[in-house]
């Protein structure tokens, strides 16, 4: 620690007064909250205005969070917020292994969503491959599909329909609101129509202002 007059190597006297302590406390609070890892005192100081006193700000902050649902904890030489240990049961950390839905499953789900109520045979016909037991089980297990009424057809096959949970997960008001094929194409979610179809010489890379779909504005 050097004294008063210094040469500008980080310990130089501040050009402006540092913020008041409550303000420094707010700063440490926000920095630690947003940081993806625990931060050391030196890292805090580096992010705060010159002349700040992160150690004192941390002390005040720790006091403020005493007894709250969140605590300021020391992790080695660094500091971080953690939820209070006695509330851990509310969070059940065991979970959250995010896994993407398999292609087979998402295709099957899409067909059920668009064609419900739909039988297994119909799904297989549309996808062109037979459906594995695991796919349906997974979708049933996720609560995104359920069994609908049996179909009035030979063998009275069961049908599949989507659930409220499905609508909830995908942010839909109802399955009827799913866009149709023409609308998917119009929205650019499908490749250009294969040949001679309605939307003209679609060049997928055409930038916005380009003459693609010229005169569309007069069409509707």
């Amino acid at each position, binding site marked *: 620690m050097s004294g008063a007059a210094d040469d500008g190597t980080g310990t130089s006297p501040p050009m402006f007064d540092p913020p008041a302590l409550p303000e420094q406390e707010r700063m440490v609070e926000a920095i630690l909250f947003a940081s993806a890892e625990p931060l050391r005192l030196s890292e805090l100081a580096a992010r705060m205005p010159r002349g700040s006193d992160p150690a004192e700000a941390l002390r005040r902050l720790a006091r403020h969070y005493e007894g709250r649902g969140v605590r300021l904890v020391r992790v080695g030489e660094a500091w971080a917020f953690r939820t209070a240990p006695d509330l851990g049961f509310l969070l059940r950390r065991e979970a959250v292994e995010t896994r993407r839905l398999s292609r087979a499953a998402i295709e099957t789900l899409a067909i059920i969503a668009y064609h419900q109520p739909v039988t297994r045979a119909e799904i297989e016909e549309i996808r062109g491959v037979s459906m594995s037991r695991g796919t349906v089980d997974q979708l049933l297990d996720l609560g995104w599909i359920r069994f609908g009424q049996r179909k009035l057809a030979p063998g009275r096959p069961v049908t599949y329909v989507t659930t409220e949970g499905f609508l909830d997960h995908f942010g839909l008001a109802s399955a009827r609101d799913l866009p149709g094929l023409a609308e998917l194409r119009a929205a650019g979610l499908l*490749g250009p129509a294969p040949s001679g179809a309605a939307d003209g010489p679609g060049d997928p890379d055409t930038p916005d202002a380009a003459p693609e779909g010229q005169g569309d*504005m007069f069409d509707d």
Partner: protein
Amino acid sequence: MAEDTWEDARDRICARRAAEALIVDVAGFEGPLDLMLALARSQKLDLREISVLALAEQYLAFIARARSLRLELAADYLVMAAWLAWLKSRLLLPDPADTGPSGAELAERLALQLARLEAMREAAARLMARDRLGREIFARGLPEGIAVHRRVRVSATLLELLEAYARIRTRDAFRPYALDRDAVFTMEQALEHLRGLVGHAADWAALEAFLPEGWSDGPGRRRSATAATFAAALELAREGHIEIRQREGFAPIQIRRKPR
């Protein structure tokens, strides 16, 4: 004549710049409405008080200049130009007999449309200028994870769902070309069929008579069977089993067993 003052020179440069600015590539605009908005902005701040007549003239002048410079003009710019020319005539010479919306009404609608676009541009700018998550405002950097009801959380987005459906429904459009078999009578089938029949064809008979049963109903099936049977007939003729003749163009094709 007074020499150029600095102001004169500056004015001339500004005027030239303005002229050049108007000659900018039309591609810089997102369509006629965008171009008109740019022109209208130079008139008034409140777009609903602009002179649509003046705007129409500006637009037409712009298009005329662009054409004289042989700039490639997209069709909708020309369509708009034609419509504005028509609107202009209606504004100048109202036809009392006409029952449609008056020129003034149409002009008002156009002004409103420009004002709406302008309003959305401003709204977009204001929106993007807000304090935004991940830029000025931050979420917890070290989330501790909130358990969902299950251990494994499966993720799937609406976009993935839509793309999956689009993929399935357009797969047929992109698969390698393959014929629908049940509407196709193959040449092998036709050969086999014809071989069994020509032994009895001592006299000339029309090729159609040799079509297999049940293949004359639909046009697609009949076409396929006819083509295959004709090809099979050619093959049998090449092998020396039958003869083929056609009296004139488009006359019926006839075949018979080759006399020995």
